[in-house]
């Protein structure tokens, strides 16, 4: 048993003697080489991208020239199903509301009379609001108590400037 154990210890010692320096050196080499490797990686990536920018469009264009896309779509895509899945009325309403089509029609076809009428109506609405505000102010004034509540006496005369 003893010679066998000695052999194992010797082997482990040898491995340790070799592996530790290799690991240390390897780590050091990796640290030193990392910037250079990054530069190389970036350069390769850039050149590959440039090449793909040239090659891919040309290749796709060549492929598309040889394909009848319309026929492919007609044969393989259920267009009616797609159209049915879209709420065209809602979409149209949203577009019309967004571009304010009624306003465009009014501006392009509206007569001076209709513009005047619109102005009169809006002015009347503004006047209605003014009358309502006046009434509200009057009601608030009437709702206030006639006798002043007990509180600090404010001296008559100009208010002193606090500054």
């Amino acid at each position, binding site marked *: 048993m003893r010679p066998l154990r000695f052999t194992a210890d010797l082997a482990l010692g040898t491995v340790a003697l070799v592996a530790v320096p290799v690991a240390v050196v390897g780590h050091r080499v990796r640290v030193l080489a990392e910037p250079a490797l990054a530069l190389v990686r970036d350069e390769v990536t850039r050149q590959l991208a440039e090449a793909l920018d040239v090659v891919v469009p040309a290749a796709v264009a060549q492929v598309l020239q040889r394909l009848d896309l319309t026929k492919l779509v007609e044969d393989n895509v259920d267009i009616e199903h797609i159209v049915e899945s879209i709420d065209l009325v809602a979409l149209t309403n949203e577009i019309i509301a967004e571009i304010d089509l009624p306003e465009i029609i009014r501006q392009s076809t509206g007569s001076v009379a209709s513009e005047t009428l*619109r102005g009169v109506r809006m002015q009347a609405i503004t006047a209605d609001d003014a009358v*309502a505000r006046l009434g509200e102010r009057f009601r608030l004034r009437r709702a206030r108590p006639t006798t002043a509540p007990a509180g600090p006496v404010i001296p008559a005369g100009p208010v002193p400037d606090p500054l």
Partner: protein
Amino acid sequence: MTAEPVSPVPREARGYQGEVAGLVTRMVGAGIDAGVVGLVLLLAWLGLNGLKFMVDPRGFQFSGTSVLLTLTAAFVVLVVYLTAAWATTGRTWGSHVMGMRVVDRQGRRLRPAVALLRALFCAFFPIGLLWCGANRSRRSVQDIVLRTSVVYDWVPRRGVTQVHVPPTG
């Protein structure tokens, strides 16, 4: 995506649709309606005289107008005009011009009986309309008694108008 109907009302007026109309708009509308009644009376008088002329051209003279007869005719024309307008479209010519509509509390068109009552009330007690200027909920005496509302409604439509009533107090 919700399918909201596109409103033909100008943007600045959209927020007011369904709101109870105020004193000024109502007075302008009432003035136009008074003009319509006056025009109807004038045309009736001219038509009557034209008829008299055709029957007896030689002895024709313009018929005189008595105050009592004119007032009676004006009341009759006004009541018929208002009743017919409120019971059918909810708007007289004055209301149409000013973009208003008379509706019940649910925003529906008035029933003929209610329209007739309101027309009689307006014809015999027009000063009650001025109460809408003092009332917080913008209701005239006629509106309060008959539970009706006059709302801004610029779009000619059938059916129910959404009424937004200010709080009473």
